[in-house]
């Protein structure tokens, strides 16, 4: 395990936070297929890296989630790749990737050293590209998250994840090459999130993650030119939470498998909002940039709320709230 150890001669704030974990007395564990996470809180893909192992007590999270790995190496988008707008950020990083071989050689050993399960995010430019990446990753990682918010080059660039048939094709092919849990991370702009979630479930997925960032186009206030080198990017952060809450609510009613909520989670209350509409776990993305500790605080906050209410599960906590 990578311990968060502050310099004893010149202590910093990490010491105080690492020393006060708040006993994890309530069992908040959650199952994603065959994988048990000790807490239903994990980082969002692209918003976490092994660099954080020395800054935050990663072991207090349910899992680590990698940035999306593609089959072939990709360079990423031109500058600027991100900007902040009121209540959100827009990124067009473009998912630079070194492919599965590069990932296994350079990044995976650092994830493996974190001592939480690693969920490897996998992407593709067409449905047929996912299974070979998962096969190449082999026994590495504890689960796979399929990022289907990618333009489908077989279908003129419509998002793979907006097309239930393409989702089915991706998941069925991946199911054949791995026994590990499969999470399907869905996009926001879909005709029916219920149909997309059902397609994932029927093809053998163990969970769905709702959702990715939302396509957006920020302009410079002065020049009225696109700020991002790629012109469009994905909106994330607090402003997308009500949009994603609706999607999580709809998806949860459509499938039996767990729904992992992702979008604007900053606090334990945000997580409880998602749990109240049917989510089983949450991912924390944008909030971690300003506060590397954000996801750990969400996990500790859930423990604290259950302890304060003297209940043993989040379900009971929500029932208490509902009875008000």
């Amino acid at each position: 395990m990578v311990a968060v150890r502050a310099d004893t001669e010149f202590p910093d704030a990490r010491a105080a936070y690492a020393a006060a974990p708040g006993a994890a007395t309530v069992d908040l564990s959650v199952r994603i297929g065959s994988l048990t996470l000790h807490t239903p809180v994990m980082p969002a893909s692209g918003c976490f890296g092994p660099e954080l192992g020395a800054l935050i007590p990663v072991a207090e999270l349910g899992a680590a989630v990698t940035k999306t790995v593609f089959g072939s190496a990709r360079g990423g988008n031109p500058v600027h790749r991100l900007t902040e707008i009121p209540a959100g950020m827009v990124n067009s990083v473009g998912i630079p990737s070194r492919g599965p071989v590069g990932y296994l050689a350079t990044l995976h050993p650092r994830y493996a050293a974190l001592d939480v399960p690693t969920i490897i995010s996998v992407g593709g430019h067409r449905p047929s590209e996912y299974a070979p990446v998962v096969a190449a990753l082999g026994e590495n990682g504890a689960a796979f998250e399929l990022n289907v918010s990618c333009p489908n080059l077989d279908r003129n660039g419509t998002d793979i994840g907006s097309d239930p048939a393409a989702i089915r094709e991706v998941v069925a092919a991946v199911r054949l090459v791995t026994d590990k849990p499969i999470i399907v991370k869905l996009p926001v702009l879909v005709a029916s999130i219920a149909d997309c979630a059902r397609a994932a479930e029927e093809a053998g997925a163990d969970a769905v993650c709702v959702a990715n960032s939302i396509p957006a186009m920020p302009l410079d206030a002065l020049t009225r030119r696109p700020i991002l080198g790629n012109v469009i990017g994905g909106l994330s952060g607090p402003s997308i939470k009500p949009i994603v809450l609706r999607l999580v609510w709809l998806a949860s009613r459509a499938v039996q498998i767990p729904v992992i909520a992702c979008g604007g989670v900053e606090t334990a209350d945000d997580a409880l909002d998602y749990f109240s509409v049917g989510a089983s776990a949450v991912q924390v993305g944008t909030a971690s940039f300003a506060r590397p500790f954000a996801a750990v605080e969400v996990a500790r906050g859930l423990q604290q709320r259950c302890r304060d209410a003297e209940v043993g599960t989040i379900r009971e906590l929500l029932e208490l709230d509902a009875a008000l």
Partner: protein
Amino acid sequence: MRATAAAAARREAAARARAFAEADARALDGLVSVRPRQAVPRPQPVWDDAEMLVHEPAGERYRRLVLASSSIAHTALAGQFLMITVPPHAGDTILLPRPMAIHRRRPATADQPGTVELIYGVVGRGTRALAAVPVGGTLQVTGPLGRGFEFETGTRSALLIGRGVGICGVMGAAEDAQAAGIRTTMVLSGQRPEQLLGRADCAELGVRVIAVTDDDGSSDLVTLSAGLRAEFDGATPERTPPDVVMVCGAGVLARLAAELGAHWGVPVQASLEAHMACGLGYCHGCAAPVRTDASVEGPLVCADGPVFDARIPVD
């Protein structure tokens, strides 16, 4: 006629902003590359709740921040930066931390905590919110981050060039130069004399100052370049070319420095700025303007820089 004047002013500001961005991008095209392995290991970044000891205007345009963080003051290397988490202000929540160069490092003494000094301009929502944080408040900071300026052993003299708030980017190099007995000249460039940062710091560090401004035309690139060539023309021992040039503040200045470096046959290190989210490397948000194959990810300003080698491209 006031509306017309306002519209004209707006158009002019927009044109200036576009021209600046385009000139900067052109100047940096093919200019920078990641430096070979560094000799000094990079310190482990930490995050700290740092008390704000000083927060006051600096010159006409900027604000000075002194933060107590013994850990960061003790370990930070010249040219490294911090990510500053900006507290909410007047109902506005700032989502992304702001990268800021470490201007001065002052290690802890028996009765004082170590401090880092930062200088920033109030240019947008984030810095407006930051400007409202009172002395005595705390800021969450992550750092020290990135790869800074490095002096080769045996360096005897250095030319540092800073413009605007970029002067802070190179001031750490002036601190190291003083400690190592390296004879140093620093160009302080800005729009107006009242805005120039760093005069007092240079005086304290025994650094010779060449102050240039847009007001009197001395900061003009052609004028400045000619002036510096004449300054270091070898006429006397003090006027021999510097062993290294270090620059921060604008792409066009980095290019000018690279031209001077080529002329004198000495290495040039340039510190770049970028929009960032994590500051550590995992978000991949701050691609450096380095030409790479489309299938290869280029270097990142936060993790591979912010200081790069600057060399005039040969093609």
